[in-house]
Structures are given as C-alpha cells and as structure tokens.
C-alpha cells in the first residue's frame, strides 16, 4: 500500500516510513500539513499516518482538507495527546486514533488491519 507519513519530527517520520517499508509498503514523508496536502494530491495515498499537532494545522484540519481535495485515504492519527477532546475530534474525521508510544512492530498491524 502507499502510505503518506506526516510528522513534524523528521527523524520520527522517517523511522515510521522505514518501518512501513519493512512491511512491504511504499511511503512518502511530509513534515507539515501543507506539504502533506500537496504530496497527497499529486500522489494519492491509500493510508495517511499523521501526528495530531502539526506546525501549521491540526491533524483534523489536514484530514478534512484531504477529503475536500478528493483524497480518499484511510487515516490513522498518532498522538501523545490522549485527552478526550483530541481523541473525539480525531475520530470525528473518521480516523483511527492511536496513542503514542506505538511499538515498532505494532505499526504494520495497524496498516494491515481492517479499514
């Protein structure tokens, strides 16, 4: 599957991408909401894995913008912010919410899991 990984921590985004590649997925990485949007529009992914707090927008805004741009990808929000508001807002966009830390070997299962 094609997976777009979005996280403003470059190292983390790269590692997540590398883990997914080990699982046979192809990946691209973005570190801002705007660059993620641009990437998704030019190369529509099957899955978007995104941090919730991005420098230029929230994960929820990014996911809604993606839908508006016609990108119909399954969304997984990964966040250290596990307060109920964040979780509820993420789920409202139809995304799967996952709390950090995510064990390295658990990530592949998330992508492979039922949509």
């Amino acid at each position, binding site marked *: 599957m094609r997976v777009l990984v979005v*996280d403003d*921590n470059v*190292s*983390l985004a790269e*590692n*997540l991408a*590398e*883990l997914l590649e*080990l699982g046979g997925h192809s990946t691209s990485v973005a570190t801002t909401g705007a660059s993620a949007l641009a990437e998704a529009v030019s190369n529509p992914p099957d899955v978007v894995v995104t941090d919730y707090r991005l420098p230029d927008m929230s994960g929820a805004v990014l996911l809604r913008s993606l839908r508006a741009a016609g990108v119909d990808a399954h969304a997984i929000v990964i966040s*250290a*912010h*596990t*307060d109920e508001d964040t979780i509820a807002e993420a789920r409202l966009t139809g995304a799967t919410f996952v709390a*950090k*830390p*995510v*064990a*390295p*070997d658990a990530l592949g299962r998330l992508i492979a899991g039922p949509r």
Partner: protein
Amino acid sequence: MQSLTFLENVKAYVGFDDASSALLLQAHPVVAPRFGPIVDDFYATIEAHAGARAAIKGGSAQIERLKGSLLRWIDEMFRGPHDEAYFQRRARIGHIHVKIDLPQVYMFTAMDRIRVQTQSVLRESTAFDADEAKRVATALDQILDIELAIMLETYREDLVAKNRTAERLATIGQLAAGIGHELRNPLGVVESSAFLVTRRLEQLQVSDPSVSRHMEKIAVEVQRSNKTISDLLELARSRPLSRRAVAARALLDAAVPAANLPAGVSVDVDAPAGLTLDCDPDQLTRVLTNLLINASQAMGGQGRIWIDARREGAVATLIVRDDGPGVPADVRPRIFEALFTTKAKGNGLGLALCRRIAEAHGGTVTLEDSERGAAFRVVIPDVGAAP
C-alpha cells in the same frame, strides 16, 4: 532548654498534672462498670446521624470492632499513665479519623457524648466527697480536651501531608503535560531506530551477542521511560471513572500477567468465585500492576506475592502481600506522597497514582501493619452495582 513535646505543652496549658492522672485512676473503678452502656450510646448516636455513619463503611461487623477499640480507649483514658507512649497511641487513632474521612465536627460532637455520659456517672456516684468530686470532674474535662487537641493536631498533620501531595500533583501536572509530550517523540525515534537496527542486522545476518545485549538494553530503558511518562500524564489528569461490576477473579487473572513480573516471582491469587468489584477495571488494574511491580522490586525479583480479594459489607478489599523486607518505619508515613521514593530506579509516582485511583473510587489504599513483608490493602466501596 529542651522544648516541650506537644503533649507536655497541652497538659501544662490546661493544668493537667500527675495529681490529675491519679484522680482519674481513682475514678476508674467507679465509671468502669458503665463503659459498656457509654460505648453503646456512642455508636447508637453515630448510627442515627448520616454524616457520621458515612465514615463507617464496614457495616455492623466494623461497629463491633470499633466498640472494642472505644472501650479500651476510655479504659486507658482513666487508667493512664498519660505519657508520650499514650500520646503516640492516641495520635494513631487521630490518623484513622482522617483516613476514614470522618468530618471534624463529629470529633467534637462524639467527644461531647462521652463527656456527658462519663460526667453523669461521676455525679451519680457517692464514691467521692463534694470537693474530690469537683476535682475529678475537672481532671476528666481536662483529659477530654487534651484528647480533642491530640485529634486536631493529628488531623492537621495529615491534612498538611495531603495538601503537600496535592500541590506536588498540580505542579507535576503542569510539567508533565509539557515535558511528557515532548519526550514521547524522541523516545519514539530511539525505540524505532533500535528496532530498525536490529532488523537490519538480522538481514545482514550479523549476530553479535554484545550488540544484541545493547539493543535489548535500549529497548528496556525506552520502555521504562515511556512508563514514567505514562505515570506522569496519568497523575496529571483526573480521568473520569468508567465504573461497572467486574468479576474480581477475571480482573486479577488479567492484572498479574500485565505486571510483567520476573520469572522468580510467583503470585497466588485468592478470590472467591462470584466476588464482583464495582470499579473502573482499567484503572484498578493499574493499581494492582503498580503494587505487584513494587512488591517484586522490593523482593529483588525473587519471592512470593499473595493477592487476597474479599467482600466486607459494602466494600471489596484486595490485599497484596509479599515476603520481602517490608517497609521501614521511618518511610511508612510518606510512601504515598508523589515524587517520594526509596528505590534507585523508582519514579515516586506509582503509589501516589494508586492512592489517586482508589480515592477516585471513594476507596483507600493503605499500608497494613504486617510482621513479614509488606501488605497493601485496597478498599473499593460499592456505589452503583449491588453486592
């Protein structure tokens, strides 16, 4: 000049001296035959008042026990000696009042019951002449006021400790939210990089025991750091409880493996079939895993732990006991304070978190007096579900 102890100070203030102690001792045989009815009246009054009754969660079995304690308490008050050891024993009772959340007002009203009853027995007695009777009555008033002073002092001490913990928790909360979230990402990078390196070495068919050991160390320490962050974040926020009736046996059977104890530690679970706990199972599991991890660490990863689950009236109790070295007397009063730890690798959050969760349930976590090892008692009262 040596400063006066608390007891010496209040005794001197009200004018209670050795002669007063001697008068009370003289009055003992006069009042002793009436101790039983005085105690019965005392608890009948408590049962008639909802606010006071609420502090007694163990039902009639507990009241029977408490009656025995009160009988000894009154007996000792007349007998004396009113020395430091006496003060220490009385102070322990004061601490219990805080523990059971007895509103302070009932210390005064309950003490008034005892005052009225004991003075009335003395007035009816012909054992003393008029002058002596007055002096006995005064000594009795004085000792009862001293008792109140001791209760207020211990109440204040406990309240200060509680507030100190609350302040620390508030400070932790602010720090935790910021730092905890900041540390999650770098730890995530370390963890995933270690994982990727391990996978890469496997691909290259490189097998080096030293490298493996170090990669394993990185993984273990990252997990430990993640646990500290989780504990901090958990302490910092008060999550609403999601309470329901759960089978004690199932909850305990799931909590034991969740604690991930070393192979040298065995856990015996004793929970009657049919015992239910009215609790938030996730949060109570957290309490149990913390207690199990503590016990295991205290025993150096080698030994036995017993968990006993029981129902006592309208509360369920869980006792987690180990055969380790126990908790030293000097640290016992502080172990539930946030950031207090005696462990080289402890973060000082585990027991504070346990207490926070138990109190959110309207219950308690306490350290029991035990001859061997340490024993923690978790009390979870029923709120919604019928027992």
